[in-house]
């Protein structure tokens, strides 16, 4: 593979250097998109995507790219300096409620998640990783600098590159999560600054932090990967996707009425597209027939996450979208009584047991498909201070032992490396699979406790990755008006789709000393050492003799006189 990669790299290098020598600026383009989807729970889901494509390659040897147009220079420099092949970073506040909301477009775990594929020419991956996390920490105003070797893992199967190139050597992959990271406006502002129009025009005007953080779920992410420039895929381009997903709680803000408008959601309306954007669109999911105004004739159908959805499309680059008021304020009103498509894959996790010595981590994975079994990859990264007893690992489905077909386990090293457990598990149809493993809680050194040790310690989400059979393929009651020719053979091109499900992080209490005690402890220890040790040492080393009982004072005085007189002494 490396050989192949090397050859491919060479040819790419030749071509792009040819293309770039005439000093013609590489082509770049920017697209923006907003998808609004009413959820069955009554909440409303808004997903922004901003995509910058740049037909250049800054990982080539001897090629210095210094002219940036749409692509943010801060990220470009970082990518070239640390030879990053692919970078995915997400900041999430809240937990995606799969059973209420269905699958998200872009899944992410609570807190911060960062995974990076380095170029295979990098010799010191750990060093690069360390520096990269520190730089990103500065760029995004986040505590990414807390990522170190104790919470970094190299998953062998769960995180494959999403872009061009078929790197499989997981030595060049680093994955880390910070489940405790809190996401706020200070993370949003630098994220917005990466956009070509900033938050001045286009869809980004809607990103007002006072509304975005008044929601049930907030997640922002940056994904950078190499993609093909054209269909022949002869040369590489870089893609930067900035995504922001937010779920608004209709209940608390709308007083129970299922009615929403752009203005209510974001306290802004849309007036124009970003002038730098080649495409700027708003999609509204109208599959469940909400009342939408203004109506638009443009409809689009797509199979998203195994479900066929219908969208109304508003093209912001066209003037008629905004109507006479010169502003677009979408108004949604719906009953939302339709049945939700039950998510086929769903996982949750909890700590069992009580007391501060041992415990058990339970990961429960549900396959809700009525008749299809499918395999999932489960990845667990557990900090070293939970000492896993890997011999107690059990996987049970339908109360029967379910032997994983692939297990990759890397034990932890105290204070150096976390546990990494990856398993390929076959989920029987319509079943609940439970993975349990027992652990013992370690005693930390007193400087290793966080400032709030009684809050507990976090264990990051486990990741379930799977190719899930599509519901569209499963759909056998042809009540919807589909062309007959399309429905005879039920299996279609989109017969399965990729899903990544994150479980909730865990909060585990470790045995914690009373930190007001050190003074007492020091005093007590010193006393015990001084008194106890001293006298015991004395007792053990001394040789005992029965000594003469000393004479009374009168006799001693008498002896003194007798000695002077030279008379024999009294005894």
């Amino acid at each position, binding site marked *: 593979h490396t050989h192949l990669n090397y050859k491919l790299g060479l040819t790419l290098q030749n071509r792009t250097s040819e293309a770039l020598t005439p000093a013609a600026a590489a082509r770049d383009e920017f697209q923006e998109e907003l998808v609004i989807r009413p959820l069955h729970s009554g909440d409303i889901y808004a997903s922004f995507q901003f995509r910058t494509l740049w037909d250049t390659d800054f990982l080539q040897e001897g090629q210095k790219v210094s002219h940036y147009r749409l692509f943010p220079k801060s990220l470009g420099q970082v990518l070239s300096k640390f030879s990053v092949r692919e970078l995915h970073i997400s900041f999430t*506040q*809240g*937990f995606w*409620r799969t059973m*209420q909301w269905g699958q998200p477009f872009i899944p992410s775990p*609570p*807190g911060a998640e960062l995974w990076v594929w380095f170029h295979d020419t990098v010799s010191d991956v750990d060093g690069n990783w360390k520096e990269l996390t520190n730089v990103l920490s500065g760029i995004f105003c986040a505590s990414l600098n807390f990522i170190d070797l104790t919470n970094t893992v190299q998953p062998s199967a769960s995180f494959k590159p999403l872009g061009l190139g078929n790197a499989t050597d997981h030595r060049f992959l680093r994955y880390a999560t910070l*489940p405790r990271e809190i996401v706020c406006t200070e993370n949003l502002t630098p994220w917005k600054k990466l956009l070509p129009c900033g938050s001045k025009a286009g869809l980004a005007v809607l990103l007002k932090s006072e509304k975005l*953080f*008044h*929601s*049930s*779920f*907030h997640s922002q992410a940056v994904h950078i990967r190499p993609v093909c420039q054209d269909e022949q895929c002869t040369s590489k381009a870089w893609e930067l996707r900035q995504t922001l997903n937010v779920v608004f*709680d209709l*209940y*608390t803000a709308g*007083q129970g009425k299922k009615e929403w408008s752009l203005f209510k959601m974001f306290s802004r309306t849309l007036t124009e597209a970003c002038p730098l954007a080649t495409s700027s669109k708003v999609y509204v999911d109208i599959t469940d027939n909400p009342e939408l105004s203004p109506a638009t004739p443009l409809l689009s159908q797509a199979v998203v996450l195994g479900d066929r959805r219908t969208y109304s499309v508003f093209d912001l680059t066209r003037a008629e979208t905004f109507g006479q008021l010169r502003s677009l304020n979408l108004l949604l009103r719906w009953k939302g009584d339709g049945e939700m498509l039950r998510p086929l894959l769903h996982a*949750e996790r*909890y*700590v*069992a*047991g*009580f*007391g*501060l010595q041992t415990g*058990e981590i*339970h990961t429960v994975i549900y396959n809700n498909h009525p008749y299809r079994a499918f395999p999932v990859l489960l990845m667990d990264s557990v900090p070293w201070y939970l000492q896993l007893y890997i011999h107690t690992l059990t996987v049970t489905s339908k109360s029967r032992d379910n032997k994983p077909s692939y297990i990759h386990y890397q034990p932890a090293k105290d204070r150096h490396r976390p546990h990494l457990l990856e398993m390929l598990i076959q989920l029987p149809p319509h079943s609940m699979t439970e993975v349990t493993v027992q652990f013992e809680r370690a005693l930390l050194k007193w400087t290793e406790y966080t400032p*709030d*040790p*009684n*809050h*507990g310690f*976090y264990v990051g989400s486990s990741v379930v990755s799977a190719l899930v059979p599509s519901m569209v393929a499963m759909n056998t009651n042809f009540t919807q008006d589909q062309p007959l020719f399309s429905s005879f053979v039920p299996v279609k091109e989109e017969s399965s789709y990729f899903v990544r499900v994150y479980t*909730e*992080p*865990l*909060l*585990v*209490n470790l045995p*914690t000393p009373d930190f007001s005690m050190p003074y007492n402890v020091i005093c007590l220890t010193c006393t015990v050492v001084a008194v106890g040790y*001293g*006298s*015991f040492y*004395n*007792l053990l080393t*001394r040789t*005992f003799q029965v000594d003469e009982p000393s004479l009374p004072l009168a006799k001693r005085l008498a002896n003194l006189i007798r000695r002077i007189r030279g008379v024999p002494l009294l005894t």
Partner: protein
Amino acid sequence: MGLLSDPSRRKVLTGLLTRLNTPICIVCYLAGIVWFMGLAFEPFTLRTYMSENAMGSTMVSSGERALSLAKEFDAHKRQAYDGMPVEWLVKAMQSRGLEVFTQSFSRKLPFPDENKERYMVRGTNVYGILRAPRAPRTEALVISAPCSPGDSNNQAVGLLLALAQYFRNQVYWAKDIIFLVNEHDLMGTQAWLEAYHHTNITGMEYSPLQGRAGSIQAALSLELSSDVITSLDLILEGLNGQLPNLDLANLFYAFCQKLGVLCTIQGKLQRNDWDTAEGYTHAAQTMMLMVLKQACGRSWGDHGLFLRYHIEAASVRGINSFRHYKTDAATIGRLLEGMVRKLNNLLERLHQSYFFYLLPSLSRFVSIGCYMLAFGLLVVILLLRALDLWVHLGAPALAAVEGVTEAQQPSGPGVLTVLTPVVISHLTGVALYLLPVHLQEMAVEHFPVSETEAVVLTAVAIYTAGLALPHNTQRLLSGEGTEQGWKVLKLTALLYLAVLLGCTALINFSLGFILAVTLVPITASMTPHMPKALSALVMVLLSPAFTVLYCVFIYQELIEAPVSVSEGWMLFLSVISQGILDHALYGSLVYPLLALFIYPCWLMFWNILFWS
């Protein structure tokens, strides 16, 4: 350490200890009792204060929908033939925007519970989770209301639903809030907690939970049985005498003060006249009630079972007496909202304040550092007596070393002479622990009694039979019981009792203290040379079973419901059956402790009395 290396000074000290042993012991005993009684005296106690900084001030406001919801719940409960209206509750919670789940459980009791009239228990818990916005499901608070038969707790469920509705519209939640309505009071809570933590300590059958919300930080249990109340009572005593963090009590007290609600502990209001005799008696009564309740090791409310899982929990019970001033449900709602909001603000688990305390009133507390001294003074008697015996046992041996002939040295008692009574006593203890429940069927066949009576009477019979066991086995082994024999046995028994009481008091001070008060005098003074009949009577009157009986009478006296002797006896029997049931159902350890350790230890002293 000069004492250890200098034989002459050591001799002086031991001489002093043996010579003054009895006076020192008597002084220690009296000092222990006086110290304990002094704990209730206000100048000696500390004022309670909020230790947790995170529970700063909060604004509070709440709605008044609770009463109509309570009525609706009542109507649906009647439709469900006094059971739990599961469907209605699920709908009611769902319509308030909670994620609702149910859990069914069943349990066959070891023998019928006559107090609560149940044997085969089958029930359903309904709980709804209010998900906090932008929170990753790692922390939760629990508000529970038991759904009990009759109309005794409908208002609590109504208030719970009203709170759920109000809380759902607020934006400030940082922890998920679980609203739990549990059937069959403690058994429902037990089933729910065991399922939540995936443990099974007591062999209950339950269905697994579908929804969770991370680690539970604190819990409040509501008990309200009327629309208006005059005062709120706070119940803290949990399983095995565990108590929640004192900050939880402080929080309750602070909000009662703020909202002007009368609040009580042990059903007693607090008085300000500590310098009068009545004021002191009142405080002492309150503290004694707490000691008695804690000592019996049962959970006095639904909250008690949470404590095992390191969840700080308390029960709040509304009391409607004839007092003129009434508080309505809206005020209680505000109070609970305030408490939950402060708990929601917690950054860490409650840990700043005390976990071991006694409360003479809601605003005063006695910390472990103070009350342990009373217990220490009692236990030191056992150690002094043991030291005395040790010196006496050692003295002839010392003389023999100095003496000329070794033939005169009395041979030490064989291991068997001491071991046999110890083993026999403990086997009796095992019989007392195991047989009552296992022999109930046989007893019911042969005697005209119910299962519960059979269990209790078997226990009493075994207890009494233990006194008549052939305790003088050493006569079979070595002919005559020697002087040294009983001394070694007593030394062993004294140290055993001291360790036993010490360990008990560390976990449950009240239990350890009550046992020490009755057991220490007889164990310290018992020898075979005392008048047999009189000392046997004293020993029986101060035996563990009689201690329980006295506690029953004192408790009834303190709650101002004195009972006659026969009623007291019936209560005593029901206390035994409840103790056995608590052990089987919730894992309370008082019955096994008494049966397996304290009673055999007492039997060893009984053995010494009849040593010959």
